[in-house]
């Protein structure tokens, strides 16, 4: 007998239940709601509001509405524009490389071979390392002079042809160096998500395909990739958003330098609000950051939605 348990969730005709549950439900939800309202929603609205003012902590000037002036100023600011550019470049490097690497590792680990759990553990380990620690370790790897780990490795590989570089102080190499650090720390997270998706594909699908005469490559194209489409768009979205959140590595490894070569939107926003007390300016940058995140999310939703509609 089909118990209509799903239907009990339809609250239209359950007056009594609703009456009895409503006070309890509000008590259950209130602590979380209060937290979200005070520390997420309110600051967000505050950011919108402040970005239209001239607020500066400790400033004697009265609070004034300045309309879009903060936005006009930050978009005229070379450092902020450089930050936007850096974030974009960083995303364009991190997202494809990290996603491809995560996918490759997940596919390798998903094979029915011995010892795969050990590799999974290894690749995931950096995820539990705080970014601050990772940054410090990689500073040593990128250390200048022939003794630096990377320099000496490259020298060995090129049979001494490599000229030692100061990666973190080279305007062309600083951002790529941060990219490598970030990928090293983050790829395990993506890999685990993709691996879970791979393992949730029923084995019968592959067996059926084999019976139908599909080769390995055809199986990959027709079974594996479609099953990975949603997790992949998710992973790409999260990595892109993370790329725009970039802060810790920059703060510790380069402090935005050399000459703004590694500054980021968050680095500029924190410096404005915290370094020079210009809260309104920082708020405006925050709003720009949020707009980027929102756009990326909507694009991902659109892609996932299309996929759902076509399947």
């Amino acid at each position, binding site marked *: *007998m*089909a*118990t*209509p348990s799903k*239907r*009990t969730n*339809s*609250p*239209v*005709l*359950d*007056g*009594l*239940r609703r009456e*009895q549950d409503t006070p309890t439900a509000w008590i259950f939800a209130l602590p979380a709601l209060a937290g979200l309202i005070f520390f997420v929603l309110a600051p967000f609205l505050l950011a919108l509001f402040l970005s239209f003012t001239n607020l500066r902590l400790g400033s004697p000037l009265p609070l004034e509405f300045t309309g879009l002036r903060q936005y006009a100023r930050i978009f005229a600011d070379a450092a902020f524009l450089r930050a936007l550019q850096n974030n974009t470049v960083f995303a364009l490097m991190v997202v494809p490389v990290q996603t491809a690497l995560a996918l490759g590792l997940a596919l390798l680990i998903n094979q029915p071979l011995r010892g795969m759990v050990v590799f999974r553990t290894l690749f995931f380990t950096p995820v539990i390392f705080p970014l601050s620690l990772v940054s410090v370790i990689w500073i040593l790897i990128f250390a200048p002079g022939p003794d630096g780990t990377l320099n000496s490795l490259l020298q060995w590989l090129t049979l001494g042809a490599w000229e030692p570089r100061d990666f973190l102080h080279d305007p062309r190499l600083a951002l790529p160096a941060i990219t490598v650090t970030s990928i090293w720390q983050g790829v395990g997270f993506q890999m685990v998500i993709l691996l879970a998706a791979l393992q949730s594909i029923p084995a019968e699908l592959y067996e059926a395909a084999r019976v139908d005469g599909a080769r390995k490559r055809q199986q990959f194209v027709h079974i594996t990739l479609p099953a990975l489409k949603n997790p992949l768009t998710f992973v790409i979205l999260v990595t892109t958003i993370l790329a725009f959140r970039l802060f810790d590595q920059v703060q510790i490894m380069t402090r935005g330098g050399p000459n703004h070569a590694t500054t980021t939107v968050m680095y500029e926003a924190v410096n404005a609000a915290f370094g020079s007390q210009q809260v309104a300016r920082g708020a405006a940058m925050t709003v720009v950051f949020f707009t980027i995140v929102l756009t990326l999310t909507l694009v991902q939703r659109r892609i996932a939605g299309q996929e759902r509609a076509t399947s």
Partner: protein
Amino acid sequence: MAAVEFRNVSKRFADGTEAVRNLNLAIHDGELVALVGPSGCGKSTVLRLLAGLEEPSAGEILLDGKVVNRIGPRQRNIAMVFQNYALYPHMTVRDNLAFPLRMRRTPRKIVARKIADIAGILNLRELLDRRPGQLSGGQKQRVAMGRALVRNPSVFLLDEPLSNLDAKLRAQIRADISSLQKRLARTTLYVTHDQVEAMTLGDRIAVMERGELHQVGTPAELYRRPRSIFVARFIGNPGMNIFPASVLRDKDGTWRLRTGHWDIPLPPEKLPRGGSPEALQSIRAGLRPESFGPTPGDGTVPCAVRATATEFLGHETLVYFHIPGAQGSTPLAARLPGHMTLPEPAAELHIHPSALYLFGGDGILLR
């Protein structure tokens, strides 16, 4: 102990489906009513309405004469055995049994005593420290019964309690429930899709179809006088054979039922009252499989059959056949005692005309 009454109860879900339509049903104090019907007929919804898990869209539900529409399950003092038992997987059997008592702030000593009592009745003593995951299906079923009985509920609800058991265990636990019910005499609503369970356990049986109650009565009443074709087919195994026929008045004034090569004189008590001659041309006739006999008896009429298959069940044989010359593709069934082999496809079976049922075009019993 309590009496239950449904008065004009309807239940419409938010998605618009009407699971129960204008239900009127009374369950007397200490009585077990079996609610049967096919999947999706609304019987589980009736149970959930009584438990307080659902609220009626219209009508009233009464417990001991009091309307309980506005009372939640917590205050109704109703116990329920779920189809999948719904035992709390993280608690031992003992804690499962204690849970409803603890919820009523029963003193510890009394809890221990009641658990000991119920464990004795249901033979659960060795299982008290196990968890549901370590129990067999039959044991889980007994624990679920125990959890329902332990707190002396005024009404006892069972939702297909045997459907997850294998056939042998089902028969045994059915017998257990039956003797338990005789001993404890709880007001019980027992939902099942299995007419055998309903017949063996129910003091009375209520038959539902598509949200509507077809008939309520004792097992004997439902078997002897089904009010509709649906009930006639549902009760009995196999259910009643239904076939199209016409009722005609012969030249000599006797009424006869005709279909294909069958021509059966109708005894006076089977004559349809009223009814236009046209309506009598196309009625539906019913015969229980057990009304057929292999040999002529007192007052029987021979009927030619064209057998299509026989099933030997040991103590009896099921013969499936068509009525020669009649349209209709579904074969009829006859239950014959012992091991019968019809010598050839064309043979004769014998019925007593008084075993006939006549239904109108709307499926309602005429006589």
